[in-house]
């Protein structure tokens, strides 16, 4: 297997044609480099999308309403649709088996909020106790709104880490302090954090029952939000959420006399449906990256093949001499294949190692929206190695075949 003379010949040829070999190797190395970087970027995109969805519960469904745009059952378009407590309760009863967490949301507009004499400009939302799990908030101090708070319409409030930083002293514990909201004292019972960062930490939460009473909300609700029980697979989860979404829309459209084809009166945001769209997009992009990468490698392989054809042409006389001395066609093929596979593999490994080093050292520092920690896993790297060896063999095969078919006498006459 190890034939020192074959290796000697390969190194002799490389030594004689340094620039040509370097340029050939460079085309293969660039191909592999581009493929690995693209695949790493594709993985980073997947990580980024997964991370974006991890910020909220991944099977979240959010409902909001607008005005009708279509005439339906004698009712004119332009009619505002208002969600109510009874809608929330009906859905809770109807989909009891499917639901994991639920919360109605009542937004309070222009509420004046004070801490001592300081005016705070944060939005106030009335929510149910399950909201913490729907919006994926974690507690950094105290507790969230609980069932008792909701049932007793307690005057309690949960603030965010951002508000704590901006309003309270560094060493001050805000829990058990009081906020003044629309002239009523609310006791701070907890401080929450949100993976979405400061953008998501502009909100102050109070129990929805309290919000509706204090701010004259009656039984009005702005949003409904739910999470479904976990499913055994992503596809099953998507299926379940689409079914729930459909049932929910059907009920709300009937309850509020909205045309089934009205595009904007009742709206839902289904995070799994969105996730599936993103994942499909990411899958598509990864496929595209593979395609581009493979095309780049093919370009490199064609380059190597071309160079090997020139090598064969240059060495025609030598091939004739070898054949006259007893070289069998297969040994000529093996000689050319060996050389092309060696050049392709060495330069490809160079590209592979360089690109993986870049991903390894720079990947963790890349923080672009929807791109997180681009990397290439071991299996992909191994696959790339096989692609390389195969590419080298393909690159060498046609020149080798051609070399083996050269007529000995004609080869000996070659100048």
């Amino acid at each position, binding site marked *: 297997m190890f034939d020192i*003379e074959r290796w000697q010949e390969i190194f002799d040829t490389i030594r004689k044609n340094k620039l040509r070999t370097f340029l050939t190797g460079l085309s293969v190395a660039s191909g592999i480099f581009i493929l690995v970087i693209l695949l790493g970027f594709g993985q980073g995109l997947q990580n980024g999308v997964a991370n974006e969805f991890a910020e909220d519960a991944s099977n979240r469904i959010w409902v909001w309403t607008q005005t009708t745009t279509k005439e339906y059952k004698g009712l004119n378009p332009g009619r505002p649709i208002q969600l109510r407590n009874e809608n929330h309760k009906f859905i809770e009863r109807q989909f009891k088996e499917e639901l994991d967490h639920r919360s109605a949301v009542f937004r309070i507009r222009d509420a004046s909020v004070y801490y001592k004499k300081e005016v705070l400009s944060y939005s106030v939302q009335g929510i149910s106790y399950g909201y913490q799990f729907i919006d994926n908030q974690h507690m950094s101090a105290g507790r969230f709104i609980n069932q008792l708070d909701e049932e007793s319409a307690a005057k309690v409030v949960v603030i965010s880490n951002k508000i704590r930083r901006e309003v309270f002293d560094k060493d001050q514990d805000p829990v058990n302090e009081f906020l003044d909201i629309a002239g009523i004292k609310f006791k701070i019972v907890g401080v929450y954090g949100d993976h979405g960062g400061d953008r998501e930490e502009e909100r102050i939460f109070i129990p929805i029952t309290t919000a509706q009473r204090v701010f004259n909300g009656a039984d009005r609700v702005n949003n409904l939000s739910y999470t479904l029980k976990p499913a055994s697979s992503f596809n099953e989860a998507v299926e379940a959420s689409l079914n729930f979404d459909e049932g929910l829309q059907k009920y709300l459209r009937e309850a509020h006399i909205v045309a089934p084809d009205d595009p904007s009166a009742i709206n839902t945001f289904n995070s799994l449906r969105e996730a599936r769209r993103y994942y499909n997009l990411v899958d598509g992009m990864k496929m595209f990256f593979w395609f581009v990468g493979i095309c780049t490698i093919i370009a490199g392989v064609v380059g190597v093949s071309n160079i090997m054809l020139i090598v064969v042409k240059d060495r025609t006389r030598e091939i004739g001499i070898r054949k*006259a001395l007893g070289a*069998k066609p297969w040994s000529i093929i093996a000689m050319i294949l060996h050389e092309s596979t060696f050049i392709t593999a060495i330069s490809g490994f160079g590209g592979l190692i360089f690109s993986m080093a870049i991903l390894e050292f720079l990947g963790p520092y890349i923080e672009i929206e929807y791109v997180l920690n681009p990397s290439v896993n071991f299996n992909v790297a191994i696959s790339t190695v096989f692609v390389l060896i195969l590419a080298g063999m393909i690159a060498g095969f046609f020149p080798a075949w051609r070399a083996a078919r050269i007529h000995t006498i004609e080869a000996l006459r070659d100048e």
Partner: protein
Amino acid sequence: MATMIEIKDLHKSYQMGKNSLHVLKGIDFSAEEGELVAIMGSSGSGKSTLLNILGLLDVADSGEYLLDGKLIKNLNETKAAKYRNKFLGFIFQSFNLINYKSALENVTLPLYYQGVNRKERQRKAMKYLEMVGLKEWSHHLPNELSGGQKQRVAIARAMVGEPKVILADELTGALDSTTSYEVMDVIQKINDQGNTILVVTHENDIAHMCKRIIYLKDGVIEEDKKIKQVRASEYVQ
């Protein structure tokens, strides 16, 4: 003496566009073991074509060819390569050495294709380089050698596989007369050891250093005669 080469009614034509060029028109001859035969003839007489067929580098259209008693017929390229390697040694006018290999490496090549191990290859190659007087030049590249030295490397290469027959095509064609005689001196010494050698040449003095001359004219043997061999050593200082 065993018959090493025997050909009967050998024909060979080449297609030149629409015309067919009949180069060999029924050649019959045989060469015994240990013979040193010169094949002479003017340009286009068919002497190189004959040598190519004898060397299994080309195939006759018709006729019979026996090499060491074996009928050579319908050989594929792999089998032809095997026969060339085992039975034949070639010496070319233009030496045909591989220019990036040293003299020693060039000489080891036939053994490499015979599957001989590296150590044995080097030992044998060195032995034959010594025989042609180039032991000290074994690690030189061809472009560091003179024409005569190159041809002696080629002779060592043709000899190293210990073939039954050595075929030499104008082996002195690229050499001056002094060097030609030196090379012929080596050839005669090899022949003295019992090797069968066929030399294609157009040089009369070289032909007379052989034991037999075959004259080809227009694709047929015009004359085939045994001669009194002139020893090249008489001309070598």
